[in-house]
């Protein structure tokens, strides 16, 4: 005990001594967990001499909450998803990238230059994009899987073996697609239908799990798992006999983006970092790591060849296009929140 005490005092003393700041260029990133290879950050630091610090979050909403609670102004860039970019623009949290400020802006693939969540790409650049649907264990179920009823009105052999993502936006959007109603509809009958569908489907669901979405498929705890495509590819690579579905009713597409935050303490470093990520070679390293797709031209030669044939990345010819999660107005969002709470009552 006495030695522990001494060590404690030593540690305390160290705390106060440490922290002499250096006058070096810095960059502060607010990023998802485990979504950028450390080697790439090291490479950026080596090329530019900028000292990189990274802080991590586990959901778009958690990031928004902590920025709102007072962290805005301590980060330079963040990596929100599509709808969250739109929300952050609405909240006035993003800074504008000036014309010509990004040297590599021309590398962005044309389809991602003018996106609905950030018209004209004034505040963001593409990071990774992918789809959200579900994977089905082929040992358990051999029938047609390209149908949202696998999750929302499952056949008997799949009942009670379904894991859904613990993510309101994606569960609601897939449900809306299943019913064939528009997202964020404020039509009462349609909202009631949506509520009834979720209530009826819940008894068939085993769990709501986002972090473990891959593990439940690999272990066989779940026979159907709502999942992000890259995550599904990893589950398959780990030995699960699963197939990723492209439901005919539609599925979710999403894109994560690097945004320039308002009051960024190191704005110049942030711009350099964005340019760095628009280099095909660099962003390809992220894609190889995360198994999603980059929105930058010329990445193909740098990609892991397996990615090109990965069924989770290449929809079949007859698959419909995916849909982005929409940003609902306040009244509709409040109904969605009530539904979600009732669902998990």
């Amino acid at each position: 005990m006495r030695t522990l005490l001494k060590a404690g005092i030593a540690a305390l003393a160290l705390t106060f001594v440490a922290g002499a700041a250096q006058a070096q260029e810095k960059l502060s990133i607010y990023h998802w967990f485990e979504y950028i290879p450390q080697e790439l950050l090291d490479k950026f630091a080596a090329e530019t001499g900028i000292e990189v610090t990274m802080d991590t979050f586990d959901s778009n909403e958690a990031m928004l909450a902590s920025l709102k609670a007072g962290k805005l102004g301590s980060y330079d860039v963040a990596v929100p998803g599509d709808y969250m970019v739109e929300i952050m623009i609405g909240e006035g949290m993003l800074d504008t990238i000036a014309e010509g400020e990004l040297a590599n802006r021309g590398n962005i693939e044309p389809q991602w230059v003018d996106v609905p969540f950030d018209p004209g790409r004034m505040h963001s650049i593409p990071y990774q994009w992918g789809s959200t649907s579900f994977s089905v264990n082929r040992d358990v179920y051999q029938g047609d899987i390209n149908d949202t009823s696998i999750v929302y009105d499952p056949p008997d052999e799949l009942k009670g073996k379904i894991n859904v993502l613990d993510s309101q936006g994606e569960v609601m959007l897939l449900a809306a697609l299943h019913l064939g109603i528009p997202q964020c509809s404020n039509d009462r009958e349609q909202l009631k239908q949506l509520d009834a569908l979720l209530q009826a489907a819940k008894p068939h669901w085993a769990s709501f799990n986002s972090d473990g979405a891959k593990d439940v498929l690999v272990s066989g705890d779940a026979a159907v798992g709502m999942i992000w495509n890259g995550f599904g590819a990893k589950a398959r690579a780990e030995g699960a006999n699963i197939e990723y579905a492209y439901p005919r009713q539609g599925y979710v597409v999403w894109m994560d983006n690097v945004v320039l935050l308002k009051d960024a303490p190191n704005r110049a470093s942030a711009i350099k970092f964005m340019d760095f990520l628009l280099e095909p070679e660099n962003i390809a390293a992220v894609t190889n790591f995360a198994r999603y797709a980059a929105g930058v031209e010329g990445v193909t030669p740098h990609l892991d060849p397996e990615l090109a044939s990965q069924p989770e990345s290449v929809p079949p010819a007859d698959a419909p296009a995916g849909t982005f999660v929409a940003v609902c107005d306040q009244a509709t969002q409040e109904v969605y929140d009530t539904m979600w709470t009732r669902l998990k009552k």
Partner: protein
Amino acid sequence: MRQRINIKRYPGFLPVTILCLVVLYAPLLVVMVYSFNDSLSITRWGGFSFRWYMEIFTGPESAKFKDAAWNSLTIALSAAVASTIIATAAAVAMVRGGAFKGKALNLALISMPIMVPEIVTAVATLVFFSAIGFTLGYLSILVAHIVFCIPFAYLPIAARLQGIDGSYEEAAQDLYASRFQAFLRVLMPLMAPGILAGFLLAFIISLDDFIITNFIKGAGIETLPTAIFGAVKQGIKPDIMALSTIMLSVSILIVTLSYFISRYGRPGTKAEA
């Protein structure tokens, strides 16, 4: 003598203790075994391998883990020491301070950190720290940890103190010991097991905290839980298992050493103090 042993022992308590240890250690066995798993998955066995241990020490993230481990250990140690001292003082005041007005209020204050849900403390503290301009970093984590460690240290210490007869320090004071001497020489040794228990609880609760730390840590500083949670997004990787096994081994080593030191170093003295 035979009778004494009989009364002390309860049949069934040993099996329950063993069951308790089995429950505590069985999941750790999984961690240890899978830290040697060659495969990436935690649910499938892919052969024996040391690669994740190599990864911890030489991989690209080794620096991050090293910093995180150092931060976690120093913060947990400092927070546990500070909160144990504060809690001991508070326990002496509460248990040996007679009946006084506002005692229940004081008890409520001391227990408050465990009563408020962690997420609320996290958000509230972050908003508060930003409002008063307290820079987020090592120090803000340490302060927040001291706060929530206090009740964990206090409760075992106070419980112990309640069981100690007041006549001991009264006798000491009758023999002209100052109040401080009475505390240091008489009361504290008697309280030692409670203090140790409180310290250990404070230490592990600080070592384990994720929610509050994650909110108030600020950019560029990680503790083990925040560094480890990163791995969860893509499923727990075996390198985290390896890291945990190392932590476990270090702690077991410390325990074993302290056992032998207390056993052979100072024969006859109490091991707890």
